[in-house]
């Protein structure tokens, strides 16, 4: 009999484990919300506070003495991000190279990879706390903290980029009897330079954002001024600083796009 309709399995089978996972997720949200003391009443009260907060922020404070203070803070923030990026990029080049497993023996790569992992594992602000203790308040602590963070990021990605290169070109350069440095300069670097520029510009952007924060723990830059304004309930000045920071970051993003286009 060929004419009868055969029972076909449904096209989209219900996936019970996935449905169960969604249920567990929903249960977790309810449980975590109850633990964190998030209630509707508190939320409504928060909205009221928020309206008051925004009311006190407007209009932004543009008193000349405060603008001078802010300009000085922003300039220091720029200094911190430029120096820490430059240091981080310079140090990441050899560290990333030594951490690449296709070019170096294991006894070199392992300590390097461990060092990179250590640099990456803590948030910049926590590293900044430790450096404030070590070298005192001021820009130097911020520079060192962000340098460490830059190494953690760039060196890791740089090492991964080197591990993905084609070894044929390296072999070709080696076959000509080139020295180790020549192999790196003509066999490895041309293959990874574009990506390295990408990492470096990204890290500069990230350093710029974070250098506005390290000031909260006393490591220099605009963050200190901002946190002081917050603690003194000087909210209209806080808004001025926030606008300035966002404007600075947008300018940096435009600059970044220009650099990326240049190296495509």
């Amino acid at each position: 009999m060929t004419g009868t309709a055969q029972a076909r399995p449904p096209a989209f089978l219900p996936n019970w484990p996935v449905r169960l996972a969604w249920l567990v997720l929903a249960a977790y949200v309810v449980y975590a919300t109850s633990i964190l003391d998030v209630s509707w009443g508190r939320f409504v009260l928060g909205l009221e506070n928020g309206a008051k907060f925004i009311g006190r922020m407007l209009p932004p404070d543009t008193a000349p003495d405060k603008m001078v203070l802010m300009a000085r803070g922003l300039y220091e923030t720029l200094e911190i991000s430029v120096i820490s990026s430059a240091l981080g990029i310079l140090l990441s080049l050899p560290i990333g190279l030594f951490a690449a497993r296709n070019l170096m023996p294991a006894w070199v790569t392992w300590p390097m990879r461990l060092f990179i992992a250590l640099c990456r594992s803590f948030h910049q602000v926590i590293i900044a706390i430790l450096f404030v203790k070590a070298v005192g308040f001021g820009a130097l602590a911020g520079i060192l903290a962000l340098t460490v963070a830059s190494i953690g990021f760039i060196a890791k990605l740089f090492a991964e980029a080197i591990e993905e290169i084609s070894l044929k070109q390296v072999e070709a350069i080696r076959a000509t009897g080139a020295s180790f440095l020549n192999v790196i300069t003509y066999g490895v670097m041309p293959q990874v330079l574009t990506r390295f520029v990408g990492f470096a510009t990204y890290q500069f952007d990230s350093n710029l954002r974070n250098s506005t924060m390290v000031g909260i723990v006393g490591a220099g830059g605009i963050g200190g001024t901002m946190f002081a304004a917050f603690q003194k309930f000087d909210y209209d000045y806080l808004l001025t600083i926030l606008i300035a920071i966002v404007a600075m970051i947008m300018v940096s993003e435009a600059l970044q796009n220009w650099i990326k286009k240049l190296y495509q």
Partner: protein
Amino acid sequence: MSTAAIDREWKRYTPRQRLARFALYFGLVFAVVASLRTVQIIPEFLYDAHEQIADLFKRMWPIAWSFYPRGVHDALIETLHIATLGTILAIVMALPLGLLAAHNITPHTGLNYVAKLLLVSSRSVNSLVWALLFVAIFGPGALAGTMAIAFRSIGFVGKLFGEALEETRPGPVEALKAVGAPWTSIYIKGYWPQVEPAFWAIALFRWDISVRESAVLGLVGAGGIGMAINAAMDLFQWERVALMLVAIFAVVIIAEIVVTTIRQKII
């Protein structure tokens, strides 16, 4: 016979490109030199830096392990809750924005632009600044931290999700439209299966970042282990700070292992 047409020397970049590159190198060197010349570093602080570092480690040792059940465990769990709940909240809010930002789903340039502007503004404010704002609104505590993580993550999740949506193939969607499927089916059976791997990858990646970030939110009063660190530092209890740093390190490593394992299983 003139050979001008073939005598031209080949150059890799146009003069304009070369000029732009030169300007970039010059600008970079200028920025570094100018920063190095004017940055305020107090050399007196540097003379005893090695003593200070030695002193720091001496004070951190022995690590106050016995303090863990009393003062660290609850704060650590709270940090994890802040990170997880904040990420979930961010995903819920970022999905509509991602849909609005994707040009093939919302064929309206104005709406795309508005959505992208919202996503950019969420990303350009640091999570600590978000925390400051929410502490002012909700008062100190985990609620402010959760909101800070959520608002910081919206931009990240929304941008990547929108980009994943824009990369979907129109084939399955057109097939569904051709058989007259309702719009819900088009989204659930046409778009969702194509972006699902990207979605989980984005969610896991963001959760990993959120765990790291939620550890410091407490420095401005937004709950979690950062508040415990701040309190211990104000009292110069460095052996407790050391314990908390070890705890954060362990949690970050565990989070990374969890993310890697889940990613291998579902993607």
